[in-house]
């Protein structure tokens, strides 16, 4: 395990592999594990082959989940910022975006830091640092606010004095935790939704009709309740880490 962590890096294991394993595991709600059609009868009983396949699949699923989580959070934060912005720009009365907003909110809502002058000033200093050291202006498709902080730290890491190095290290650790929390929040919600759909199938007596594996109804309820609770709980935790990361990174600009 230590070798694996060394090869992948803690960031990869935490941010991608763990959510991938959970999401892949949730397939047990729908499928009975049978690897024989994939790798043949002989290899299907080989734990190393099956384990490696599962690990690669979990990593791939985790990467996709992370991409979804990041893109979704970016879309949510942009939309939320536009809503908070007191723009009197004429808006269409009906639009697809307005319809998608509840969906975006439920999947990617995260409490934003309370905006005041000092927060604006700090974020502006980061943006100015990126423009100064990066030499580019007006990049409007940069990822999430925390990704911008990570890019800033990468750019300035060679320029900070030795007293800033512990801050850099701590900010990186907080960033990893933030990504992990957000990815897991999405995974838990997806698991809860799958369990909810299974409950509906159970109510409609479709479980045997579709040949789905038997899962006790109590387990499904637990997955729904705990999944939703864990998802929204993790977003609160992620918000706290976002603020910590912002504070630590802004301290590097002074």
């Amino acid at each position, binding site marked *: 395990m230590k070798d694996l962590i060394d090869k992948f890096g803690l960031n990869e294991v935490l941010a991608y592999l763990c959510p991938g394993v959970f999401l892949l595991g949730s397939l047990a709600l729908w499928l009975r594990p049978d690897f024989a059609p994939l790798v043949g009868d002989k290899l299907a009983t080989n734990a190393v082959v099956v384990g490696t396949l599962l690990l690669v699949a979990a990593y791939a699923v985790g990467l996709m989940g992370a991409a979804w989580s990041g893109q979704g959070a970016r879309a949510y*934060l*942009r939309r939320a*910022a*536009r809503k*908070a*912005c*007191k*723009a*009197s*720009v*004429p808006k269409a009365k009906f639009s697809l975006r307005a319809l998608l907003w509840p969906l975006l909110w439920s999947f990617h809502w995260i409490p934003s830091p309370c*905006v*005041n*002058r000092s*927060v*604006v*000033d700090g*974020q*502006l200093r980061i*943006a*100015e640092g*990126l*423009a*100064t050291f990066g030499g580019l*202006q*007006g990049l*409007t498709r940069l990822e999430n*606010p925390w990704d911008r902080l990570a890019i800033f730290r990468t750019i300035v890491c060679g320029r900070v004095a030795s007293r800033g190095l512990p801050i850099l290290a701590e900010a990186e650790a907080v960033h990893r935790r933030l990504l992990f929390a957000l990815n897991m929040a999405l995974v838990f919600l997806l698991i809860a939704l799958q369990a909810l759909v299974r409950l509906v199938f159970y109510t409609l007596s479709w479980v045997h009709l579709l040949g789905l594996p038997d899962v006790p109804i109590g387990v499904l309820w637990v997955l729904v309740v705990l999944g939703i609770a864990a998802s929204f709980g993790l977003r609160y935790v992620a918000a706290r880490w976002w603020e910590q990361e912002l504070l630590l990174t802004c301290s590097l600009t002074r």
Partner: protein
Amino acid sequence: MPERLTVKAEITQGIVVATVGYGLEQMLQEGAAKELSRRLLEEYQRQMDEAKKAGTARTGSCVVVIKAETAGSPLVRALFELYKAVTAEGGQVICVGYPSDYIDSLTELGLPSLHGFSLAASQEAAIKTLVSA
């Protein structure tokens, strides 16, 4: 669109209206934020002083009209510095014509979420808001 940095201000219905124009090059220059902030603050203070002497100042508020197709951190910094000066006078800042492609970058920095800063679709709408406030 102007290729040189221009900042002009006038009083309209007792409100300071500052018009800012620049080209892409100004946004890329080193020290652009300082220069833009300085020019914008100077124009605002000059107009406010004149309006106060003439007794025509309605409020300390300011409408900033952007005449440009690009934006960047120097413009946001200048707007933020102006915002601090204007709110110290008890007024508010309304920004008109912020390049639409860059509005997301502005909102993500949080400036439009601050009390006393807002965006408007037109200069007339901005002045109407401030006059009726």
